[in-house]
């Protein structure tokens, strides 16, 4: 590739053709401030914070959107640049409801940082917020949208369009009225929004935030009448450290458990336990569907079957492909299976009235908040999961409690419902549910382990947009003889833009899969909307490595070997897809409007 030579602040640098000035500056460790720029998204070039001076040019150029060219001389910190940049920041502050001390993003707001760095003072421009009629959309259980804090950088619009291919948020009106809006400015919970929170994760200010339930959790913890149960999703333990001053890629499972205990939870349990349970139920459902389709030729049995763990994906398919809802596994997500069991089986076991249990979950996800609030999620007779916190909210609680997270000693989950396998941990990465399901289903059918070195089904791992893998079933056990010679075709996609590609090929008949795993967020749950900010490909890759490291280190690697799961079936559920399972662990879906 041909090289481009230029100077930035009088320092020579050579970059590949096509690289931007911003990228060239990064190479020299020169930091140019940005706002609308995000590594995961296409370049917008609309905030103008990153402008730099190009010698010989009267106007400044946006470094994020301008390709480096041969012989270019760039100044990133000349007086002209500083004045212009300060002016742009001052303009943004003037249209932003800058009540920082009362803002959820106080301390982590990118505009606040810039305003402080450039010493934006009191004697600034006219406050535009006071002149406009802003409304706050706080109707969604997942996401709060406050237009008065929006600086129109359109990162949310690009996240929703480019990563998720949904367009729940787009630009409306022009000039002074220009704003980011949903369809006909309806509340977020009424439109195609999947609550995935990718917009929340990328919003530089407090315009899009998760609805937080921190104070509700504190109240419950401090209510002596209540028994507090907490479950933690697989992807939380490999990212929580980032929000508490640690590098990405650290596994903090033991510290997280210790911290939760110190916060005052009575029982610290693991969503991974129900992830293993999900594999048993969903795996058996897949085998039952295969039998129905291949042996009984039942037209009511739909293949391919898709996973159902990701609530963003569920809401997406309800809106976008309602005709394919019969293809979705009826198995609830691990969070909701956990919730249903806590207020039935677990309550009975520990002899506590389910009425007095507050079931809290810690999720990498904003859509889980919506999921917990679905009307159908009351199969225990109570709200199965009472309160859902994101990874970020948990980090905030740990800070509030004055816990020195890094100094904590590792502790173990409580039991019962605290034991899990490596197969459950990898639920947090794209391809993980598929891999976990295959480890179990293949063994059920053949009596042998999956034919992959170290149980690592590498074809379904990694950041490729759509991954395909096929496993040929040979010499099955007698009861599965109808599967002899069948090549089980699977597909894995992460991010809803990729999900769309896969589902379109299912709709038009081009794809002949048996089993499809879809995760709504890029990289799977580890890239979830409720995860620590920032996110980018590099960070997601480090989180992924951590997840597979955690799997490798687990004594049990297969869901069906989880002893607590085995015991749960013996004591309570009796058998997969049995009566109790249907009552507590399976659900139904609702077709929704496409706007």
């Amino acid at each position, binding site marked *: 590739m041909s090289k481009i030579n230029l100077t930035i602040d009088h320092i020579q640098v050579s970059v590949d053709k096509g690289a931007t000035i911003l990228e060239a500056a990064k190479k020299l460790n020169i930091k140019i401030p940005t706002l609308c720029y995000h590594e995961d998204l296409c370049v917008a070039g609309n905030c103008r914070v990153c402008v730099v001076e190009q010698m010989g040019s009267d106007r400044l150029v946006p470094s994020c959107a301008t390709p480096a060219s041969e012989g270019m001389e760039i100044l990133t910190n000349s007086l002209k640049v500083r004045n212009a940049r300060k002016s742009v920041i001052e303009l943004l502050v003037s249209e932003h409801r800058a009540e920082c001390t009362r803002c959820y993003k106080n301390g982590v707001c990118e505009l606040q940082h810039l305003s402080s760095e450039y010493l934006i003072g009191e004697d600034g421009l006219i406050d535009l917020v006071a002149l406009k009629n802003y409304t706050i959309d706080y109707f969604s259980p997942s996401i709060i949208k406050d237009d008065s804090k929006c600086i129109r950088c359109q990162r949310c619009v690009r996240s929703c369009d480019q990563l998720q291919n949904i367009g729940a948020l787009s630009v409306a009106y022009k000039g002074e*009225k220009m704003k980011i809006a949903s369809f006909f400015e309806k509340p977020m919970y009424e439109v195609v929004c999947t609550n995935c929170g990718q917009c929340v994760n990328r919003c530089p200010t407090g315009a899009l935030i998760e609805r937080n339930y921190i104070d509700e959790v504190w109240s419950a913890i401090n209510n002596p009448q209540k028994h507090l149960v907490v479950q933690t999703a697989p992807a939380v333990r490999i990212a929580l450290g980032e929000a508490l001053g640690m590098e990405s890629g650290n596994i903090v499972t033991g510290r997280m458990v210790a911290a939760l205990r110190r916060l005052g939870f009575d029982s610290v349990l693991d969503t991974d336990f129900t992830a293993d349970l999900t594999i048993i139920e969903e795996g058996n459902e897949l085998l039952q569907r295969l039998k129905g389709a291949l042996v009984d030729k039942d037209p009511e049995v739909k293949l391919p079957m898709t996973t159902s763990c990701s609530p963003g994906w569920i809401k997406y398919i309800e809106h976008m492909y309602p005709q394919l809802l019969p293809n979705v596994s009826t198995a609830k997500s691990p969070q909701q299976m956990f919730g249903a069991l806590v207020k039935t089986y677990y309550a009975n076991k520990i002899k506590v009235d389910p009425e007095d249990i507050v079931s809290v979950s810690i999720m990498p996800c904003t859509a889980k908040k919506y999921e917990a609030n679905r009307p159908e999620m009351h199969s225990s007779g109570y709200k199965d999961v009472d309160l859902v916190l994101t990874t970020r909210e948990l980090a905030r609680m740990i800070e509030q409690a004055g816990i020195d997270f890094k100094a904590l000693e590792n502790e173990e989950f409580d039991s019962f419902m605290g034991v899990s396998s490596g197969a459950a941990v990898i639920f947090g990465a794209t391809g993980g549910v598929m891999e976990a399901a295959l480890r179990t289903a293949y063994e059920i059918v053949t009596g042998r382990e999956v034919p992959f070195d170290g149980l690592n089904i590498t074809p379904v791992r990694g950041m490729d947009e759509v991954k395909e893998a096929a496993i040929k079933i040979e010499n099955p056990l007698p009861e599965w003889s109808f599967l002899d010679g069948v090549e089980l075709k699977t597909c894995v996609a992460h991010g809803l833009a990729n999900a769309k590609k896969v589902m379109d090929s299912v709709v038009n008949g081009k794809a002949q899969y048996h089993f499809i795993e879809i995760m709504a967020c890029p990289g799977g749950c580890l890239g979830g909307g409720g995860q620590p900010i920032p996110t980018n490909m590099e960070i997601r890759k480090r989180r992924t490595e951590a997840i597979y490291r955690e799997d490798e280190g687990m004594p049990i690697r297969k869901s069906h070997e989880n002893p607590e799961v085995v015991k749960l079936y013996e004591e309570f559920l009796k058998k997969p897809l049995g009566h109790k399972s249907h009552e507590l662990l399976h659900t139904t879906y609702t077709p929704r409007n496409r706007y």
Partner: protein
Amino acid sequence: MAKKNLQRLDLIFKNEQDGEQILTKTFKRSNQDIVNDLIISGLKGRGGAGYPTGLKWKLASEAEGDFKYVICNADEGEPGTFKDREILSQVPVKVLIGMAVCAKVIGAHEGYIYLRGEYKFLVEPLTEIIDDFHVLLNKIGFDFRVKIFLGSGAYICGEESALFESMEGHRGEPRNKPPFPTQAGYRKMPTVINNVETLAHTYSIFKYGPDKFKDLGVQDSRGSKVFSVSGDTPIPGIYELEFGMSLQKFVEDFGDGDAKAVQVGGASGFCVPRKKFENTKIGYQGKLTGVSLPTGGSMMIFNSSRSMYNVLHNYLEFFVEESCGQCTPCRVGTQQLLLGIEAVKKGEKSSEYLEKLLGLAENMRVTAKCGLGQSVANSFSSIVENFKEEMIY
């Protein structure tokens, strides 16, 4: 009231019936010769930005793309400009010939006239003329079709890259540049986009040769220009004049004898006060022409009964509404300028606040994404600096 000795020209609007002949003659020439003629003629874009037309065609002819497009920008939205409407009403064939020759030079088979939404009444007559023109093209055996694309009323869509976005069915928002239209324009393909008047001028160059065109005008501003004259003038209307005229001469010819300022180039242009009429010429900016002002052709004359505060207020209201809202300096800056002058006028801000606003305008000029935001400073600074007392009292 009849005015004497107007330095008028009659090139553009001259009704010539030799379209077929000129087209046939030009098509026989090599692409290089045609481009060279345009370069020699010194023709620059008449929409206001003044990019050399010959160079634009040359770059597009050299660019690689599966398709190429010729687009006539007829989204005439600059306040005080109404010349393109007249050109398309009176001599549309000249524009079509310019488009066809451009298509031949760059290798395009599709052309569009992006017509301002408010000019819907022109669709029917234009369609008839385009149909006839297609017959003529068939006759000479050139595969090129022109379609009309009707805008929806946003001023910003006159900006070329916003215009492409609008044609592609997106929000009319300017793109980052580079790439420029000649590299990646409509549908990301090499595109020549010319103003209506520019294309009409190419006809004269094909017919009379580049030297005749070059003889008109001055150093960096060659040929004639069609002006839309409005405001305090007894003879508002469309006039074709030679480049290089001083504003003094202009107000003598067109003013009502009491002109205190002329707004050259519409809301996005410059305001020239009386004391600078003598030393200001109308033309593109260049080394040899001294203080000269580029313009898409809008000339608004204000006499001493006018409040320049009201004039500026009106322009700013226009920008506040017509900014696409995409980039910070334009979206927020226009609102701040408008509210700022209101606050100074009301006494809510001290007169020193005007200095801050002038600084803001300058920063908008150097940071805004497109010509709209960049040019707000033109009218703002020239009016505030020359009529400061009117802003305060």
